[in-house]
């Protein structure tokens, strides 16, 4: 009975993580559409939420990677507690970076949290460091933003070359319409890659609980539906504060740049999802945004802001791992039963509500209401 309660808490925590992932990352998906005025903020966010949900049903390759290739979980209560602690570590880091308005990586936070918790719980042998973390997470995560930078840069050069002599008005209208498509594809790609990470973690918990046999890996349908719904809901509720950072503080972009950046981000993420790489969608989209700006004019990019984002990226993996490890140690103070997860998740929920309320009060708007960019 105790392990069943822990599974329920882990699933609920995973879905909350998925929600915070959507909440945190929605800015990456919709910022370019909003900053170029291709779509009003509320419509952009609703549209992204729907396509996030649809994207969750497209592929399961990333879920398989997260569940099988990063860490090895023993089918016992220790393994379950490690999954729980990893999730809480990732959520804590996501909330902190959201609170301070720093774009981060939910994916790195999740991987970092899991690695930290499993390392403390099961030891170094339970971490697939080389082929898993390095080969399927870190190297693709390094390649993806650089690739998106290159693709976004090349794309905008081609676009300017092709339409450069046309009157600006119709061209802007054309690319704004194009952004409805490219923004939709980006939301679809985000849902595909990010929702699958949660599916992978829930499946990992089900394996740890013995619900799914280790030699019969599959992602149950209810896991796919609930993960898609959670990330879509998180996207809808939105991370309005981060929209400002991603949309205009990196560089002011025109509709062609927005179109190129979204197209580059979407293609890199979808291609990676196809082969099962759990990318950081934040890193990838930011790479594409900077690439489309740098190709036009290097001075157009606010490199200081881009530098701050890089610092946040570097911090994410070790800090989430630290949070995951600490959460595991605190949870184990209450034994291996359900008491630890109940106490820790309740404390985290209270802390999250306090942070959200405080942030909303500082911004001067009630929770869920878009900031001035919506009313401009």
């Amino acid at each position, binding site marked *: 009975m105790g392990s069943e309660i822990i599974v329920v808490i882990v699933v609920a925590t995973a879905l909350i993580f998925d929600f915070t992932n959507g909440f945190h990352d929605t800015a990456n998906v919709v910022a370019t559409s909003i900053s170029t005025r291709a779509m009003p903020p509320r419509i952009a966010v609703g549209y992204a939420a729907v396509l996030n949900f649809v994207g969750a049903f497209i592929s399961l390759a990333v879920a398989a990677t997260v569940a099988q290739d990063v860490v090895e979980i023993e089918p016992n209560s220790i393994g379950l507690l490690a999954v729980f602690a990893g999730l809480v570590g990732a959520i804590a880091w996501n909330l902190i970076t959201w609170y301070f308005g720093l774009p981060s990586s939910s994916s790195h936070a999740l991987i970092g949290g899991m690695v930290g918790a499993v390392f403390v719980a099961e030891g170094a042998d339970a971490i697939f460091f080389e082929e898993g973390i390095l080969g399927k997470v870190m190297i693709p995560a390094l390649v993806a933003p650089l*690739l998106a930078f290159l693709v976004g840069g*090349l794309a905008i050069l081609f676009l300017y070359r092709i339409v450069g002599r046309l009157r600006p008005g119709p061209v802007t209208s*054309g690319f704004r319409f194009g952004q409805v498509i490219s923004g939709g594809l980006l939301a679809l790609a985000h849902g595909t890659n990010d929702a699958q990470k949660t599916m992978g973690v829930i499946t990992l918990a089900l394996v740890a609980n013995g619900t799914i046999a280790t030699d019969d890996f599959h992602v149950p349908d209810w896991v796919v539906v609930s993960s898609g719904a959670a990330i879509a809901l998180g996207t809808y509720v939105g991370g309005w504060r981060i929209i400002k950072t991603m949309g205009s503080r990196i560089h002011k972009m025109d509709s062609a740049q927005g179109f190129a950046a979204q197209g580059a981000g979407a293609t890199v993420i979808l291609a990676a999802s196809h*082969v099962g790489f759990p990318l950081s969608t934040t890193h990838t989209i930011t790479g594409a945004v900077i690439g489309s700006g740098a190709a036009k004019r290097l001075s157009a990019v606010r490199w200081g802001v881009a530098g701050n984002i890089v610092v946040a990226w570097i911090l994410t993996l070790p800090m989430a791992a630290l949070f995951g490890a600490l959460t595991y140690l605190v949870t184990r103070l209450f034994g291996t039963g359900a008491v630890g997860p109940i106490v820790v998740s309740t404390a985290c929920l209270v802390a999250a509500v306090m942070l959200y309320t405080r942030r909303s009060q500082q911004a001067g708007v009630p929770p869920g209401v878009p900031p001035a960019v919506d009313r401009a």
Partner: protein
Amino acid sequence: MIASIVDTDALLQVIWVSLIAGVGVPACYALAILGANRALEFGRNGRSVEAVAFGVVGVLGLAVVVASIVFGIVTLVDD
């Protein structure tokens, strides 16, 4: 050492697919915009041959964009 750790085939697939689709599809969309704009301009000036030619460029560009998106999603779903 790196090559033995990373699934090189998968990584190369991501790179070439991203380059072709991420640059090619937006370029085709830009051709669609170019074709539509030029077709309208030439049509207004009574130059119907040029208008039709650019109209064809526009339609083809848009067709490639739609076909590429459908192909990409079908490939992902069929996996």
